[in-house]
């Protein structure tokens, strides 16, 4: 790995928000391919963050700060990626379902997905089924990711899937779900395509569905 790209990688793992932007700019100034900065510096670092989370070395605070650091660097890099026409790993629409305002988990999933090369459109919280449908029609994502923290709000996921079916979208988009009361069996019960218990595994599920 190139030395400057290595520093981008390390600044994410060291949670160095104040440095990463400069490192990305240095890499760009040195003529390094923006795609290489993204994949070898940022995506690789976020992969390592995910590994450390799975291994119990990192916890949510560490993952949050690493992801925030990555996003700081990505803000510098993004215009160059756009200019170069670098394709994302896939477009994902994400939101917390109707009646639910919890979004720490959802935001973390969004950041981890961005850090893994996906284009993420974050709808926010308290998203009604019809809004998911409306946004899916206009944004044409490959994946819709829904989050819920409460037993009382998770049925909105089922309602959203039914609404996607009625709009003729279900065969065109994969649906993944996550959140405290959810499980793989609930995902199957409502006809979702995947379930992830945490942000790192959400990335893996999204990748496998789009492979």
């Amino acid at each position: 790995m190139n030395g400057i790209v290595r520093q981008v990688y390390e600044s994410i793992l060291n949670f160095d928000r104040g440095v990463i932007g400069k490192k990305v700019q240095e890499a760009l100034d040195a003529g390094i391919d923006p795609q290489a900065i993204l994949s070898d510096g940022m995506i690789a670092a976020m992969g390592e963050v995910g590994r450390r989370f799975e291994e119990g070395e990192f916890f949510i605070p560490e993952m949050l700060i690493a992801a925030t650091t990555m996003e700081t660097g990505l803000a510098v890099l993004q215009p160059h990626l756009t200019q170069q026409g670098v394709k994302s790993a896939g477009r994902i629409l994400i939101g917390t379902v109707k009646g639910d305002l919890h979004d720490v988990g959802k935001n973390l999933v969004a950041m981890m997905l961005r850090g893994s090369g996906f284009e993420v459109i974050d709808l926010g919280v308290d998203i009604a089924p019809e809004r998911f449908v409306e946004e899916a029609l206009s944004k044409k994502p490959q994946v819709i990711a829904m989050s819920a923290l409460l037993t009382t709000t998770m049925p909105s996921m089922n309602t959203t899937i039914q609404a996607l079916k009625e709009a003729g979208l279900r065969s065109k988009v994969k649906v993944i779900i996550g959140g405290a009361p959810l499980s793989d069996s609930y995902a199957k019960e409502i006809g979702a395509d995947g379930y992830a218990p945490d942000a790192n595994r959400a990335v893996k599920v999204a990748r496998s569905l789009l492979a």
Partner: protein
Amino acid sequence: MSMFAFKPDPDFSRLRKALLRQGEPDHVPLYELFADLEIVYEVIKHDEWVHPASKALVNAVKSRLIKFYYMLGYDYVPLFALATFPRDNRVSVSDTAALSRGQRSWQDEHHGVINNREDFEKYPWPSPESVDYSAFETLAGKLPDGMKIIGMTSGVLENVMWLTGYETLARLLYEDPQLASDMFHRVGETLVSVHQTLARMDCIGAVAMGDDMGFKTSTMISPRHLREYVFPWQKRIVTAAHSGDKPFILHSCGNLKTIMNDLIDFVGIDAKHSYEDQILPVTEAKRLYGSRVAVAGGLDMDLLCRASPGEVRRHTRRVIDECAPGGGYCLGTGNSVANYINLENYLTMLDEGRRNSSV
């Protein structure tokens, strides 16, 4: 149908025996962190559910809160010490619960009332002397014979997280650890003082603290940070409770696998409350930790929300059969009697629990 076909027979020593694992009580006591007021008011208005022979006793109770716990067979009434740390960083949305409260609000996880050193210095930290305990005295005067109060506060980590917002705390742990430490110190010393006062009250039979430290797969912050910032304060709070001979019940949601030994051996809790089937079913918790700590509650909230009464009854029976022998177990929900659980399911759980009763 008479739903409460039994004569209330509160006896706090029954619950104490379970909390301190001093053998098997005459029947499995009930325990909840609290019941939402929507549930309390819904239940107490159904006078027809009370067995005719018990109506005079129930109607003699002069507090709605006590009446709820008394008529359902609890040996105590839970009461929060309204300390403590004022804040307005909350968000709300329409409540989807069956017994809706209109709007349901939650902590804003992104923004705190304390985000930096300047906020910390300006914050109106309460003095321990400013805490109002008059509600305890009022309630104590209305308690039926045999009942006690369980005095409660929110916890060390919870209060810091509420004041800063979760994301700000995550940042502070790395970018301003001294401020994080100062936050825990201010919150911790206030809570210690409150628990010292609770421990001196005769009307209080035990104390409980809600300190959610986990989520589905892990702890909210690393065990290293918990050991540095949180557990020393929790230990002092437990010590305060024990100084007044009060059992200490910790309510903490989430996956605490990596810190259970700390909580039992270092912090010194007597009982652990809050279990989720997807993380650690209460029956498994009893097998793993039941020889070292009492286990309270554990009927999964999702089950109580979505299962049929028949399923709830069968599951309750299985939990009692596996957890009650030898003592050290109290029957209850996995979290609290929230306004979104199915009321019939909750009452079914209690009814099945009373079948174990000799009263």
